[in-house]
Every structure is written in structure tokens, then in C-alpha cells.
């Protein structure tokens, strides 16, 4: 048994399914590929299953928040994912962008993430991310440069009331 359906409605349904599938494919194609190294030997504290999931989810949300904040020059969009030094520094850069009339987008294409440290007190977790992303710089709405970047980010997250937030966010090599 199923829902009663007329011929016309079955065509409409097929069209909706096609549109939804198409939309999903489009959205899937813009999502970065994410590879996460096993966390079994991360120390000194064991990373619980729930933490494994939430740390990666919240870190990736940080990249999206950064892209949104930098492409719209809205520091407030950082608040959902960044705290402390990371938020201060990123906010400072967005303010500089505003003065210069510049917007930048950071479209992550792939993340290769390794959690390297989880503090004994559970108050900080550090991860390294070999990330590939596309940067597009616009000045007064006109693109002035696009670059394909492959670099490493060192990130420290700490727990807040409801989620992990990025406290240190530093790209490049030493």
C-alpha cells in the first residue's frame, strides 16, 4: 500500500525527486573531502566517540564560518565557531578588509586532519590539518586574484557550553 497517486502527480513527484537529487549533487560537489586519521593513540587523554564526531564537525564548521565572515566582511559570523585569540585575529583582519574594500572567500576543497593532543583535563584539543582551498580576493566586487592553496593549519579547540570552538587557528609552516 502506498499513497494514492494520479498520473500527473507522479510526473510532478519525479520532477521534485530529480530537482532534489540535483540539488544534493550540487551541494555535495561543493563540500570538501575530509580525511581523518584514527584517534586511538592520541594522548594523554582518550578521545571519546562523541568527542571524535563533534570535534571534526565543529572544526569544519569553523572553516565555513570563516568563509562566510570574510566574504561578507561580517566579524559577527565568526562567533559561532571561534573564541579567544583566533576570533580576535580574524576579526582584526576583517576590519582591515573593510577599510580596504576587499572581500575574500576561502573555499575548502579537502581536509586531511590529524588530532595530535587532547589535554588531560579535557579542556583543549589540538589538530593538524593539511588543507587545500581556493582563495578569491575581490576589490569593490571585482576579482583581483584567485589562488589555489595547499598548506597546514594548526588548530586548538576548547569546549564551550554547547560545542567546541576554535581558540588557536594558525596556517603555514614554522
Amino acid at each position: 500500500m502506498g499513497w494514492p497517486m494520479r498520473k500527473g502527480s507522479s510526473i510532478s513527484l519525479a520532477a521534485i525527486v530529480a530537482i532534489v537529487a540535483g540539488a544534493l549533487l550540487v551541494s555535495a560537489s561543493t563540500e570538501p573531502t575530509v580525511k581523518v586519521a584514527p584517534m586511538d593513540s592520541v594522548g594523554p587523554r582518550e578521545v571519546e566517540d562523541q568527542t571524535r564526531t563533534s570535534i571534526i564537525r565543529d572544526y569544519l564548521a569553523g572553516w565555513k564560518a570563516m568563509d562566510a565572515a570574510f566574504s561578507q566582511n561580517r566579524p559577527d559570523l565568526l562567533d559561532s565557531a571561534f573564541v579567544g585569540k583566533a576570533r580576535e585575529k580574524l576579526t582584526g583582519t576583517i576590519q582591515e578588509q573593510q577599510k580596504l574594500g576587499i572581500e575574500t572567500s576561502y573555499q575548502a576543497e579537502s581536509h586531511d586532519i590529524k588530532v595530535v593532543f587532547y589535554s588531560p583535563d579535557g579542556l583543549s584539543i589540538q589538530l593538524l590539518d593539511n588543507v587545500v582551498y581556493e582563495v578569491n580576493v575581490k576589490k569593490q566586487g571585482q576579482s583581483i586574484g584567485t589562488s589555489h592553496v595547499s598548506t597546514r593549519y594548526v588548530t586548538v579547540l576548547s569546549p564551550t557550553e554547547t560545542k567546541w570552538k576554535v581558540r588557536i587557528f594558525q596556517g603555514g609552516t614554522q
Partner: protein
Amino acid sequence: MTRWITFWWAIAILLAGLASAQELRVPAKVEAGTAFSVPTSGSGDAMLYIIGPGDALERKVHLGEEIAFEADDLHNAGHYLAILSGSASQSTQFDVVASNQPASLSFFAKPSRLAVNRPNGISGVTYIFDVFGNLVLKPEEISFRLSDATGGVQSHNATSRDGVAWVQLNSAPKAGPAHFEASLSGVQATRIVQEVPGEPCSIRMTAKPSKDQRVLLQTDPVRDCNGNPVPDGTIVSFTERHEGRVSTVDVPLKRSVAETELPAVSGATITVASGVVLGNEIRWGGR
């Protein structure tokens, strides 16, 4: 004839283009807070943009001249793009790395209060930053030192990895404030950890008649198993049982001693306890 003119025009335009060609040579790595310069070639004016999550700069440049950046221009570590925007845009990438000189420590000592004699009970985690708040990623030797209230010292050195070093130490046998310090090359941070007595080790009470048909109950000073006085305010329960009736009085320790009065009922059994620790039992005026 027309073909020859067109050919030589094309050559002339190409040579003019080569003469004004822009070239951008940025150092691959720049230490935060240091001056550096970027030589350019070509001719004419252009705009140089230095863009990254850590900073955004714009400079008007005359091609063919060197672009000088002062020590304070770029101090946030990170990966940057340099974009030269003019008749023909060009871009390159470079890293700004943390200064070689650590300047501050973020030191987390947990917990801030714990019982004495806990193996690996105290953890210290420190992140190392330069003067600009960049995480110093090169290995550094951090010295951790925990001095307890009686002068006992535990020390441990740890090498940082990706900007972080950590240690776990035991709490001391004697209660009191402990000074927990992390340091490296003239930079240090200190936290106070309160080491408090553990659970009572044993409880002993005495009983003597009081006025108005009551019995006065008083404990000896209550101590933990290391001889530290258990903190005032810890609850001690006195219980009197007689012919199925039970009376309980909860009393906070005052100067390590708990004291109360219960009805003096001949044949009653009186017990004392605190938490999971049971003390002695007294039968009052037993028959």
C-alpha cells in the same frame, strides 16, 4: 608591405610588454615582526595586496622598485597571498612564521583544588606564544615545578610539540597551597593549586553525661590518613538507636572536632560516621 608593418608593430608591442613585465619575488618565509622587502621588476604603477586570514594589507608600488615592509607591518603567523594587481596581475604565496623568541605561556593547571596524595592528580598544560600571540611551533624545553606547602618540590621537563607541552604530577601528602610553575628562557607562569585533606581516616567519639538527662558526644580531632586535619564544615553524623527508634544529628566539624547532645536513654546505641567512614559505637548506661 602592409604585412611587414603589422609584423613590426606586433614585435614592438611584445618588446614593450616585456619591458614592463611584472615580477613578484616574495621570500617564502618571513618571521613575524621582522622587516623584509620585495623586489619588483617592470615599469609603471601597480597595487600590491598581502592577504590572509591573519592580515590584509594594500600598497601602491612603482614597478622596478623594492617594496619595503616595516617590522610592525606583518606580525600574525599564517599563510598569505601576495597579489600584484596592475596591467597584468600576478600572485604568489608565502608564510609568516612565529617569532623565534617565546614571550608568553598559556598555562592551565587542573584541578585548582584536589585531595592530597593523588598520583598524577595534577595536570599542567602550556601553550607557547611569541610576543604577537602566535603559537611557537618549534620545539621548546619547558620546565614544570610543583612546590607544596611543606617545601617539597616535584620538577619535570617536557619538550613542546606543535606549541604545546604538558605534565602530570602527584599531589603532596600534606595539605596546603602548592605553587605550580611552568617556565622557559625567562618566561614563566604560576598557578596555585589547593591541596586539601582527603576523607577522614577514622573517627573516635567519647560520651559523658550532660545536664537535663542528655549525653554530650564529642569526637577526637578528625584527620585524613596522612594526618591532615579534615576541613571544618565536613559533616559528621551521630545516630542513636533504641527499641526501634532512630535519631540522627548531622554536625559540621569545627576546629576538626564535632560535638552534639542527644537524649540520655539507658540502653541506647550511639554511632558516629562521616561519609563512608564509620567510627566507634557506644552503648549508653547499658543494662
